[in-house]
């Protein structure tokens, strides 16, 4: 049994230690915004923030979490978050399945790279998209960076 903070709320998980955080979120806590793509840490569809860092939740075992660990999922991002708005303004998604993970990866990426160059975006965003929306994702990140810049 472990108590963690998910999107600011205390949640108690009574699951096997080896259950990945992904499945605890989806099947135990019923939060399906975080997607299962590969279960092997390759695609990034399951990206969430763990204590402020982007992680692939399919590779994080619940047993490895420390008590009080802070998890932020797509459901916990503010409705009007600059990254979400940039995604919306750019009509980025096609099938959309990878996009919650892309957005979580992008928000963490922008924290580390508030004024990214196109090359940094290309090298820093490692989440796969089968529909091929990479061009639109890069544009949305650049747009979000512009918005966030004015908030500083």
């Amino acid at each position, binding site marked *: 049994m472990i108590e963690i903070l998910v999107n600011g709320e205390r949640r108690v998980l009574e*699951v*096997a230690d080896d*259950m*990945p955080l992904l*499945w605890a979120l*989806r*099947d*135990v806590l*019923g939060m*399906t*915004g*975080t*997607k*299962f*793509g*590969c*279960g*092997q840490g*390759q*695609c990034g*569809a399951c990206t969430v923030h763990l204590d402020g860092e982007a992680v692939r939740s399919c590779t994080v075992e619940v047993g490895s979490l420390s008590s009080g660990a802070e998890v932020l*999922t*797509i*459901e916990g*991002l503010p*409705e009007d978050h600059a990254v*979400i708005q940039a*995604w*919306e303004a750019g*009509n*980025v*998604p*096609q*099938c*959309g*399945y*990878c*996009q*919650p993970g892309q*957005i979580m990866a992008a928000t963490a990426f922008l924290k580390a790279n508030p004024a990214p160059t196109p090359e940094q975006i*290309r*090298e820093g*965003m*490692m*989440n*796969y*998209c*089968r*529909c*091929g*929306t*990479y*061009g*639109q*994702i890069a544009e949305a990140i650049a747009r979000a960076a512009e918005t966030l810049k004015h908030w500083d």
Partner: protein
Amino acid sequence: MPVAYEPVSRRGVFKIAGLGLCLAALPSAARAGEAGGEGEAFGIYMRLMPDGAVQVLTPNAEMGQGTYDALAKLVAEELDADWARVSIGLSGFHPGMVNPRLGQQVTGNSEAVRGYSTILRRAGATARAMLVQAASLRWGVPTARLRTEAGHVLNDMAEARFSYAELVSDAALLPVPEVVPLKDEADFRLLGRDLPRKEVPDKVRGRAIYGIDIKLPDMLVAAMAMPAAAWGGFRAMGMEAALAVPGVQAVVPVRGGQAVVAGDWWTAQKAAALISFEAEGELLSQAALDAAMAAALDDDDAPGAAFAPYGTPLPVRDESRALVADAMAGAVKRVRMDADVPYLAHATLEPMNCTAQLTDGALTVWAPNQSPEDSAKLAAKLTGLPLDRIDFRRTFMGGGFGRRWNNDYVQQAVETVMGLPPTLQGRPVKLVWSRTQDGQHDFYRSASRARTEVGLDAGGRICAWRTKVVGQSLMLAWREGATPQMRDGSLIKELPYGVPVVHLETAPVSLPVPVGFWRSVAHMPNIFFQEIMMDALAAEVGADPLDFRLAHLAEDPRSRAVLETLAGMMGWAGRGRAPKGVGHGLALSNGYGSWCAVGARVKLAEGQLIVERLWGVMDCGLALEPENVRRQVEGAMVFGLGAALDGRVSFEDGVASPLGLTDIGMSSPAGVPPIEVKLIRGGDAVGGAGEVGVPGVAPALCNAILAAGGPAIRSLPISAAGLTVVV
């Protein structure tokens, strides 16, 4: 949750609990003039609610191609609805929602808009006509003096207006007009322009419900145990051990394996790993599959058929062969080329999954699925229930690309709930595959080989073209006993170039690999074979590859236009001055009622290949949503790029490899160069947009590699030609 299909009365007026009257079910399209199948009730596609809100139920799957919005706009445009008040639902199976071009309710072949356009537009126009009639009666003003705009009927002379909400109950009582006019394109307010997409706000907040996200009261979750091999009989062992795992509630034998049922997927899949399989009999490996394909290509007597362009009768093979042999004998030069493409995986990012619930003699299914009609009928057959007791619902789909045309995973979910022990009967079960299973049990794009011989005359023009293609037949895989036809994945399509004598033939190869439709289906291999040949021919006669193509497209201005526009974007005229090791290549990539050309610029250095840029030009006639069409072409090019560079599935004792998402020919974010797509318009009819960008990428790349001084690549993927792809 998506709006699920609810059966509606065919009467003009009916009550929805608590909502009062609405204008909902409109009658037969067949009576309303123009096209439309007999007895199609197009009222099933839309409802105008008492408060003026419009609900559109899209008959198609939404898997990233964007028809969710596009199809709803067809209704809203003719209705002159306020787009902000239009909501869209995903249909399940509905017997009335047959795509007229496909003969059933199925999403594929880039047929959504082409198939449903007329009936959806007529649905909107009919409702609009009834609202105008209602207003005309209220005001005592002829309908000709009234107009509609954004959910209102306007009487300009009296400066009066009614909202649709004010008219809906009157309109619902009126007779349904037999004939309604459709708008001229010049009057379009919604179509032909870009608007925010309705599904995007939910998709970017994690709220859109995909099949894998279904949650129901008392729901159980199943993981599959399946043998590693993609085909063949097997014997399962270890079910008792799986059932003994704490948390596991049932183990049910289903199609292709054992479904392990638990409260969560992690527990279920750990238990499923305890089940093992023993293959019954020997399974083929890649060398044997390759040998069978090679033998079919060499065997001129192999069973097969000759094909002519669409719309012409199938020629008798021997006669067609004789004609081309005569023409070939008169050629000054003959160029021969063998080429081949491998098996490919779909790799939708959302693994196969399906949810089912069997209660009180009724089955409900929630599935990300492209073929609801086939799936619902399969479910009826499996359960023995009448079709009207099958409620087949759909969700958003994390990619489809043809994979979800198949319903193997639907069958597994249905068989799971049928086989639940008595204590669990009636509970819903969500069945989810692992990524590895998704890769091991795909319906793969068939490998295929072609032998092409082309005769050139004294003027350097093509005088005869002969191609034989072999591969597994997709039509036969889809429908037992089907006859191969032009859509068949193993067949070459028509040749776009003006050539006096053409002979195209195919020999389906009977092999056990499960094959299916894969984005762009037969176009990808066949356009590869055709377009690398065109560059080889141009080189043979010392012509520029663009000029050589244009010289054979005198009768086809739209093909010329996409190529010429592409050449302009690429700076084709100046490509001869490119630095050493840099090459430009292009390919014509027509299909699905659209004209398309793809260009590539590559750099070669010491065996390393860098794809520097890609360009695409699309002429799909009227682009209903220009931005989405550009994105579809771009996305299709990314899809085609990954396949061209790295896509290849091989089999060892029936087991597919590779399986990882990152090495099955899926473009990585850093592996995609800048892509520029331009739309041009050469006609009015709306062409398909989702697939046509795929096929041109591989030949454009191969032609560019050759131009850069690299090898002549005749076999995909490109990475197998000894080039290291650098990203």
